[in-house]
């Protein structure tokens, strides 16, 4: 088992009232699954993704990631945990504007203190695999949306994470580009990467092996 959420609650206090963002979430995810989280705006999709990604905390409940109890970890250890095992893909790509494609790919490796020669090999490998060798010296602004998202995914994958979290990865793309990206996810999942995506689209959700529906912070 990759991760397990037990009775997760998250709320904010507003005007003397407690507003629940997440309510009693219970979720088991095995390695190799491809999960789609669906639901209307404000249903807590992104919040759930943040909690799973350990970017955000929660107020009640237990969270097991691999063999670690995330809820009892310190901030710093939690950060180390997600750095090690989780890759993020965003709707608006979030490439670093000042860096070239190659340098964007290299960034996570730098933070993980890989040696220069290793970094070079891994970046070259990734460029090859995603067929973007020709674009390696371009800056994000010089790429189309689909190409940027390709780089975003390549960057998320480069340090071989166990889990990819994707927040509406095709939201800013046209249908053809979107389909290509989903194909890629499917392929990655077939190769053994666990993927959790948030999506609005039934069609994209269908790529996954399991769909979780949220409404007002509850799983339905």
């Amino acid at each position, binding site marked *: 088992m990759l991760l397990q959420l037990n009775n997760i609650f998250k709320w904010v206090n507003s005007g003397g009232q407690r507003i629940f963002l997440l309510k009693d979430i219970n979720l088991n995810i095995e390695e190799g699954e491809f999960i789609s989280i669906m639901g209307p705006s404000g249903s807590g999709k992104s919040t759930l993704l943040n909690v799973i990604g350990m970017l955000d905390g929660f107020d009640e409940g237990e969270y097991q990631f691999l063999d670690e109890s995330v809820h009892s970890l310190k901030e710093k250890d939690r950060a180390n945990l997600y*750095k090690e095992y989780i890759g993020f893909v965003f709707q608006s790509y979030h490439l*670093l504007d000042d860096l070239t494609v190659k340098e964007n790919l290299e960034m*996570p490796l730098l933070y993980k203190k890989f040696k220069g020669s290793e970094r070079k090999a891994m970046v070259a490998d990734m460029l090859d695999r995603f067929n973007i060798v020709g674009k390696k010296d371009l800056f994000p602004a010089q790429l189309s949306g689909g190409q940027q998202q390709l780089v975003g995914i390549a960057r998320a994958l480069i340090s071989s994470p166990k889990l990819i979290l994707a927040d509406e990865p095709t939201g800013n793309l046209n249908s053809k580009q979107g389909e290509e990206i989903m194909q890629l996810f499917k392929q990655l999942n077939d190769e053994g990467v666990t993927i959790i995506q948030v999506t609005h689209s039934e069609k994209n959700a269908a790529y996954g092996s399991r769909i979780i529906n949220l409404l007002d912070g509850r799983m339905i």
Partner: protein
Amino acid sequence: MIKNYFKIAWRNLKANRLFSVINILGLSLGLTITILLFLFIRHELSFDEMYAEKENIYRLLTDQESDGGREIAATSPAIAAPMAMDEIPEIKYAARMLQNDFGGTASVRANNENFTEKSFFWVDQELLDIFKVQLVKGQRNNALNRPNTIVLSESAAKKYFGAMDPLGKMIKVDNRYELEVTGVYSDFEANSTLDCGVMASFSTLWFAKKPTWYNLSFETYLLLNPNTDPLAVETKMKELLDKGLEKQDQWYDFRLQPFETIHLHSTQISHSYASNMGDISEVHNLTFLAVLILLIACINYMNLTTAYSQKRSKEVGINKTLGAAKKNLLTRFYMETGVLTAISMGIAVVMAILAIPVFNTVTDQNLNLKLFLKPELLTTFSLIWLVITFVSGSYPALYLSAFSPKTIIQPSYQQGRKNSIIRKSLVVFQFATSVVLIVGVLLIHRQLQFINEQDLGFKPENVMAISTSGIRGAQQTSALVHEFESLTDVKSVSMAQGFPGMSVSGRTLRKKNDGQEGLDINTNVTDSGIIDVLQLKLLAGQNLPAEKQEGDKLVDVILNKKAVDYLGYSPKEAIGKEVHISVTNRIVGVVDDFNFSSLHVPISAYAFHNNTGEPKSYLLVRFRSNGLSKTIAQFENVFQKVAPESSFDYSFLDKNIEKLYKRERRAAQVGIIFCGLAIFVACLGLLGLAAFTAAQRKKEIGIRKVLGASILAISRMLLTDFLKPISVSLAIGFPIAYFLMNRWLQHFAYHIQISWTVFLIAGFSVVLIALVTISFQSIRAATQNPVKSLRTE
């Protein structure tokens, strides 16, 4: 990794041009000033460090007391040095020093040519021993042993004799002394308090033959044996004084001043012959100003970097999800600051090198480019670089690196108000500083103008003072006076010992010679022309008589009102009364008070008299002004006709008076430049801040426009947002400025009142400057198409 940070830093600089230019410009301006002032301060602090025995050298001061108050003078009696050397074993050497004509110039005739020597000193042989003056020709241990000998500085030797060997040559000084050149010394360094152009043996003078306890006109330097307690020596000096003068006759006491403190700590000590004086408070003020300007530049950096945080927060967020630790990001932001500071530092060094000549003129210094070659400077620059990087980089680095990665997933995340409050207080600080500087400069300027326009009680314009120290005998003098009187351009002439703006003899005024405490009075030997030449206002009586009656032994005197007031007479009553000033005087006239000294001090007693004890060294000429160069040429002609062996040395009274305010003028100039730069740098910061605020509020502005806000309304909204902190700065700056400037004005006995108009002008200009700076950005933001700004999300 480091290489990578460096690369990112560089790209960031390039990508945000406005931001980089503003920061680099601000920082390099601040650093340029810091470098220049650092060199200046170093130069000031390095004074006299070349003298091997500097810590054992002392100057003998006299602490003088009279009815007029207390005064500490750098001069002492001629008898002190020889007696001290004989009777006090702790004193190794004692030497006297007297500038020719008590602080005047000397007319030197050498190699059949006339020269005016501005820096002519009569000194004891021991002075060469105390300061170990380097002789390039001749023997140091006996160069000035005999009377009628002289040693020249290399530049003086070159001036007088060119390439010839000056040793053994004769020089005629003031048409009176024939001196043999016995040595040539290398010029004193720029940072030496001792700065004699030539030194002649003191024993030549009449004063050396009959030294007294009464005439305090000589600087005395003492070299004590190592490890001597100076206080013990001071006590022994006082015992010497007790032996020489009866207790009741002692109007002064001795003090020892450590030589090393002379340059920076002598502003309260009068009558020094040293021309190269500094002031520790000036060093402090300038240091403070430099730090202030640098701080303003650092604040710009902090402001702009954090203002830019919207974009940065996203970047930080991404980096954190990619695995960056806080440490990584801190390093990165410091690195960015470091790169920017290094670039600014480089530019600043170049600018400082280019600005040195201007700086030298404005501050009247001689800083040298060679200072840049010293290795210690490199260390200092690196240190400054580090400090600036740390000071200006810390807040942005800590603030930015703390962003949570979740900001990128929920972009609506609002930044705390804390940030904007800190930023606003930084802007307030900058502008409050600018306000203080503007008010300061305005008031200094007004005070100097006030001094210029002040009715001095006499008219210094169009009066030339010609040095007659080279003229010998009554016949030549009267010939000279006569020649000048006959010129059509000349209104009136007078021979005098001195003129307003220079110090003359100090004596004591008493009603009778009864040994009672009297009043300090300045006395000036002159003749019947003085009232006309200076255009003094005669209150009663008449001029000094042109001819002395046969058998009349009394000295005639014209007193000023202050002196007559002290005596308790009205001007009319005073005429014909006898008073005691060294000898018995008869009052023949009373003039209204006039500012014979600087406006720093209140007017005190003054007397013009016709006693013959002191020489009349100046011919004062009031002339009609029609073409100054023509007048000067004509006067020189006449002078050389009468006195072919003297040099024609002249000055103008109004110019001499201006020199009294040299320090203030210099402070005003430095102040204006500093203030201008400080305001400029502060405006740079405001410009950047306005640009980024407009960018940050792009979306808000778009929404407001869609809802129907006009361009005017939006511009107004952005402007008032900035005017609020500026009003706060005014409220803080005004009282500080008032307090500081009030204190400064107390240095003048005659000064302006601080008027509210100054604050009005300062406040108005700050608001105007700020408005001009921000309106461009505000209007641009307001006129933008809202579709554009709303599409960005």
